[in-house]
């Protein structure tokens, strides 16, 4: 999905992992995904460059649908749909 489509999504929860380093954002995402329902959308905020690759890989393994990334000035917004 492109940035405009991502911005229109109905996000069930946003987890702010900015400032933490690997594997902080992953652990934050794992915890937050446990708090939403299947089919709902989670947004993860991270300032860790590696997260851009880690979260999509993690989604693949966990069978969540990775929707895309919005790059802000100093952080990333990653979107996924819970399996």
């Amino acid at each position: 999905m492109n940035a405009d489509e991502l911005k229109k999504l109905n996000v069930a929860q946003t987890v702010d992992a900015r400032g933490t380093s690997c594997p902080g954002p992953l652990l934050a995402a794992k915890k937050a995904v446990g708090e939403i329902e299947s089919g709902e959308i989670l947004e993860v905020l991270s300032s860790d460059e590696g997260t851009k690759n880690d979260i999509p890989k993690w989604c693949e393994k966990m069978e969540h649908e990775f929707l895309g990334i919005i790059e802000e000035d100093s952080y990333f917004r990653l979107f996924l749909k819970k399996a």
Partner: protein
Amino acid sequence: MEEEMLKQLEDLKKRVGKLEKNRKDQLSIAIVSGDLDKILATMIISLAAAASDTKVKLFFSFWALSALRDQKKKAHGKDFISKMFGLMLPKGRNKLKLSKMNMMGMGPAMIKFLMRKQNVMSLDEMFKQAAELGIEIIVCEMSMNLMGFKKEEIIDYPHLSYAGAATFVAEASESSIQFFI
């Protein structure tokens, strides 16, 4: 001809099923090193695996056992050699040395400073998260006795047990990922 194909397909299905059953989604690591950098790497990989719902079993032996010593606990009734070992080896995960650039403790102090600065979890926090995620720690009893450590000086950790090499071999043979640090 068709019958033959179906039979082969059935046979293949059975074999795939068996293979899948043999390889669990599990990470088994044998940790022998007790260096700060290697224990950090162990914990980071383990946490990432556990966050991905991979079962994690960590087998601590030899030098790695220093990381499991509780700084506040005291063991009694040790013989002379055990006492000497106990004195010379790091007492707990916060006293571990770096495998390179240790520089009489300046290296670890600098790494810990950088970790705080860059918001990397501390080893204490990593062990706490590991406990929450159900990461198992298995202590090699033979090497613990060899190093002169006693159970009463090992950290309190909810998923800790004692076993031997056969347990690691059995667990590793069923794991999709295994390695040695």
